[in-house]
């Protein structure tokens, strides 16, 4: 794979089916929400233009809704609307609403009072004044609002992929997790183009003169409806069970690709963010999910790991990776970080994760409790040395490990510590490390092998059964290529796993991934 660097164009051609599907989903999501926003926002805008006392409240509420971060908004939607297109559309609708309402209101109240009076004096009824005078005169302003809403929606719709609603975000977030720039660009460029094109087309509409505008405004709803229907076109084939996999899992050999190749698993698959996946499985929105074997939510949501009887998910060590120059700068660092080695087994890690993921204890408290229990904890020395910068990815386990390292360094050395937690996926963390923005973060040898090094299949095959061999290979290659050092493994393994609700797995008598395939294939 690495011998010949794939160009973006090759990637797009190779993935043209997916690209087309995602683009259509993206357009569809954008315009269903836009259409709904117009259906709701336009009358509401007209209404508050009539009853201006209510305008403050309505615009205020719409404004507040818009300030909710998009990821959080999607999160709020899930308990109510589940996952998939419904919550995504609802969230997009909420973002599109403010510009539509506000511009309708401004447009209509901005119509010259003498012109409205003239219309009244000619003998027009209220409805006629609205349809023939106020709306046409307000139309450029209203269209500007719709234009803003469309561009916002194209942007926010990339996040729809996090809750299994599809769209170009699948490539973007998949690419970020997999460190695959081509994949990121294959999603980001079309998304940017869509935004530019819609913005341009709507700007043309805005500039039309009154006569043409009238025609255009009558055609617009038809176009919007057609564009909305586009979403339904790629509606995937259904199977008895529904799977939800993370973008990263979708693109990994020890992930969806392996499931297809080695098991021949065919299942209706949605792409979904790790943050909502477990809960969606628990709430029966999804039946089969990808996850980490040490994830605390396994315990919390009563999920079981299906036996990987064909061994496509080899176990991998977790260990801190550190910049070589940082090890030179901080001579005590390696020794200190290695103190943790051997203490944390799989079940210990799962237990710790359970406390943060499910009991919502702070990672700091969990880390401290653990260190105290194992007599590793020492009070902060309040050292005056240089600052060690610790990074972590954006999930519980990484936060806990980050906290432990921070406490150990503060307790046993003279260095000071700054933590940069929640650095998104693998790519962000790794780039931060190679760009000297952090000095270390906890990583997994499998990720190092498959995501960063991407060796030939032959090498992967020769390593994948043996944890230690993998560790040695990755350690050597990282030193050579990136001047990064893998320290001693912490003790637990982290591997991908396929999970189901325990209840359902028992009912269907599914214990292994092959059982799952057999069940899906029966009838």
């Amino acid at each position: 794979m690495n011998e010949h660097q794939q160009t973006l164009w090759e990637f797009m051609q190779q993935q043209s089916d997916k690209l087309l599907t995602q683009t259509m989903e993206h357009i569809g999501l954008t315009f269903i929400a836009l259409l709904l926003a117009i259906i709701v926002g336009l009358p509401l805008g007209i209404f508050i233009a009539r009853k201006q006392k209510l305008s403050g409240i309505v615009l205020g509420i719409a404004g507040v809704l818009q300030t909710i971060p998009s990821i959080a908004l999607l999160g709020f939607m899930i308990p109510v609307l589940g996952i998939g297109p419904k919550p995504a559309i609802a969230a997009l609708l909420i973002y599109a609403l403010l510009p539509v309402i506000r511009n309708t209101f401004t447009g209509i109240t901005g119509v010259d009072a003498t012109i409205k009076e003239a219309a009244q004096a000619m003998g027009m009824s209220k409805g006629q004044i609205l349809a023939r005078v106020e709306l046409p005169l307000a139309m450029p302003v209203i269209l500007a609002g719709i234009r803003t809403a469309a561009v916002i929606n194209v942007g926010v719709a990339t996040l729809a992929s996090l809750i299994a609603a599809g769209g170009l975000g699948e490539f973007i977030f998949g690419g970020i997790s997999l460190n695959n720039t081509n994949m990121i660009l294959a999603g980001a460029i079309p998304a940017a183009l869509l935004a530019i094109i819609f913005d341009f087309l709507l700007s043309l509409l805005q500039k039309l003169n009154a006569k043409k505008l009238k025609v255009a405004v009558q055609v617009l709803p038809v176009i919007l409806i057609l564009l909305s229907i586009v979403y339904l076109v790629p509606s995937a084939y259904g199977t008895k069970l529904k799977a939800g996999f993370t973008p990263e899992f979708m693109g990994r050999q020890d992930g969806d690709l392996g499931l297809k190749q080695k098991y021949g698993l065919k299942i209706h698959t949605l792409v979904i963010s790790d943050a909502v996946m477990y809960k969606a499985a628990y709430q029966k929105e999804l039946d089969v999910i990808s996850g980490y074997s040490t994830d605390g939510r396994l315990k919390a949501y009563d999920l079981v790991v299906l036996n990987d009887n064909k061994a496509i998910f080899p176990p991998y060590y977790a260990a801190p990776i550190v910049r070589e120059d940082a090890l030179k700068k901080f001579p005590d660092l390696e020794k200190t970080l290695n103190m943790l080695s051997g203490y944390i087994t799989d079940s210990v890690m799962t237990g710790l994760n359970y406390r943060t993921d499910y009991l919502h204890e702070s990672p700091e408290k969990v880390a401290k409790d653990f260190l105290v229990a194992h007599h590793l904890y020492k009070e902060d020395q309040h050292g005056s040395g240089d600052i060690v910068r610790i990074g972590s990815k954006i999930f519980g386990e990484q936060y806990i490990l980050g906290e432990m390292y921070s406490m150990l360094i503060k307790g046993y050395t003279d260095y000071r510590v700054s933590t940069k937690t929640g650095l998104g996926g693998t790519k962000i963390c790794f780039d931060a490390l190679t760009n000297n923005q952090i000095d270390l973060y906890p990583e997994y040898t499998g990720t190092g092998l498959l995501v960063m090094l991407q060796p030939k299949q032959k090498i992967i095959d020769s390593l994948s059964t043996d944890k230690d061999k993998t560790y040695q290979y990755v350690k050597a290659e990282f030193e050579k290529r990136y001047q990064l050092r893998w320290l001693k493994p912490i003790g637990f393994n982290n591997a991908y796993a396929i999970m189901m609700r325990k209840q359902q797995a028992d009912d269907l008598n599914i214990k292994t991934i092959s059982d799952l395939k057999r069940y899906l294939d029966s009838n």
Partner: protein
Amino acid sequence: MISVRQLSKHYGELKAVDNISFEVGEHENLILLGTSGCGKTTTLKMLNRLIEPTSGEIYVDGKNVKDQSPESLRRSIGYVLQNTGLFPHYTIAENIAVVPKLLKWDKSKIESRTNELIEKLRLPVDSLYKYPSQLSGGQQQRVGLARALIADPPVLLMDEPFGALDNITRTRVQAEFKALDELLRKTIIMVTHDVQEAFELGDRICLMDKGHIVQIGTPQELLFKPANDFVKQFLDAQRVQLEFKTVTIGNIWDRLPVGGLDNIATTLNENTSVWASLTAFDHQKQQQLTIKNADAIKTITYEQLMAAYHQYQQRPQV
């Protein structure tokens, strides 16, 4: 034709219009005159129910306006706004056709009536497909008038129709306005705060102050029989010119020397104002003018005209 009885409009404490009554006869041209804020516009807008009165009655053609729906009432009353109030998103043709479309006229009728009006109002034909912003102020004003006239309403309300025009354009448009046959058949109430305009165009003038009517009567009555000092002072600044404009050849006929020849080209009739006759001397660069009434002809000089006029002014007041 129009009868206003004890009409008032109060905004809280402010009595914008306070208990006014007047009548306007058929085909009469009544001017509402007065300083800014005296209640002219308010009065006018109550006539077509753009403003609902606090109290009082309005009858148009014998019918109480309250008994009609505001929409159908307004479609039967032409209204010309101060700033034209043309719809910027409509072409001139569409602007003119607003009321006929509401009345559901068929297309050919609208078209022929529109063509008739733009010819009478001397608007260029190609302006029909332009938008208001592409026309001059004077042209826009005439479009506003066409829009009010198209459905041939018996009553026309005009709020400072020439207010936005420069002096020279205003004089020209006023002259055209006076000459327009369409308007002879209409009952018109026009608002202005321009005294000259009121005297030029009004059959009668209703002078208002602080929501009250101070005096209502013909221009001559206001000039020569002012009801009180307010009326006198209101007109004083322009009295000389107003009097020249108000007094006609007919008024001073008897004071002009008898006898004359019919051999001079320019002949003025008895309805011509003294002002217009004096201007005629200027324009024609002539020593003499011929004037005539129903049964005689007189040839007069500039000095004879001025002398007769001064005698008329000195006459004992009745």
